[in-house]
């Protein structure tokens, strides 16, 4: 699914602010993003703070950054395979159980939704400030990330869009 899809821009754009790094909330963000993109809307997801975990190149745990605190935070937060459930996480087992239940009921899993979002031309952008705090660099993020932007750029680009905060 590498072919990019042309988006017809006769509908209101959708911008999702993915602040959360919780498995269930990130899932909701990607369901909205892919659904909107598939129904001909231009979609951007702005990842900030905990949401950046979704974009890390390392899906597991890695002590990224230079300082001891950044390393500790990055290790403990982990990547997209380590996203916790917002409730009933049970020490990290729940996301695996939930993924199993999703597969059983033919619901797209998070990696599938991320791949679909990319194929549909959903724009993934990362928050510059949050990257700074966590001492992350562009090279620590997956290739699908189109840009690293500040809040002013994000607001300018979303001037005529619905903005949804997750």
């Amino acid at each position: 699914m590498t072919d990019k899809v042309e988006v017809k821009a006769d509908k209101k754009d959708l911008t999702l602010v993915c602040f959360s790094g919780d498995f269930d909330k990130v899932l909701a963000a990607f369901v909205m993003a892919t659904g909107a993109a598939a129904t001909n809307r231009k979609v951007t997801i702005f990842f900030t703070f905990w949401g950046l975990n979704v974009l890390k190149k390392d899906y597991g745990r890695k002590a990224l950054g230079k300082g001891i605190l950044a390393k500790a935070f990055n290790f403990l937060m982990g990547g997209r395979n380590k996203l916790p459930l917002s409730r009933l996480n049970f020490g990290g087992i729940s996301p695996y159980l939930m993924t199993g239940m999703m597969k059983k009921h033919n619901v797209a899993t998070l990696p599938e939704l991320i791949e679909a979002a990319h194929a549909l031309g959903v724009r993934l952008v990362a928050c510059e400030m949050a990257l700074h705090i966590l001492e992350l660099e562009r090279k620590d993020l997956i290739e699908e990330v189109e840009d690293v932007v500040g809040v002013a750029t994000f607001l300018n680009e979303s001037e005529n869009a619905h903005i949804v905060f997750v």
Partner: protein
Amino acid sequence: MEFLDITSETCPMTFVKVKLKLAKMDKGQELEVILNEGEPLQNVPASCEEQGYQVLSIEEVGGGKHRIIIQK
């Protein structure tokens, strides 16, 4: 004619798969889609028409399933 069965898919992969399939096809090519009534039947043909594709036919094939033919 290309073929896609989305009866076992759930939202949002129903219209995501149709959209991605159509994106890979050439203009003028036809796509046969088998889908369930309800949400997919309401939204897939409408979303295809919005993109400027033509929905040539919609027919019920039993068991709540429908066959639609879309021309890119």
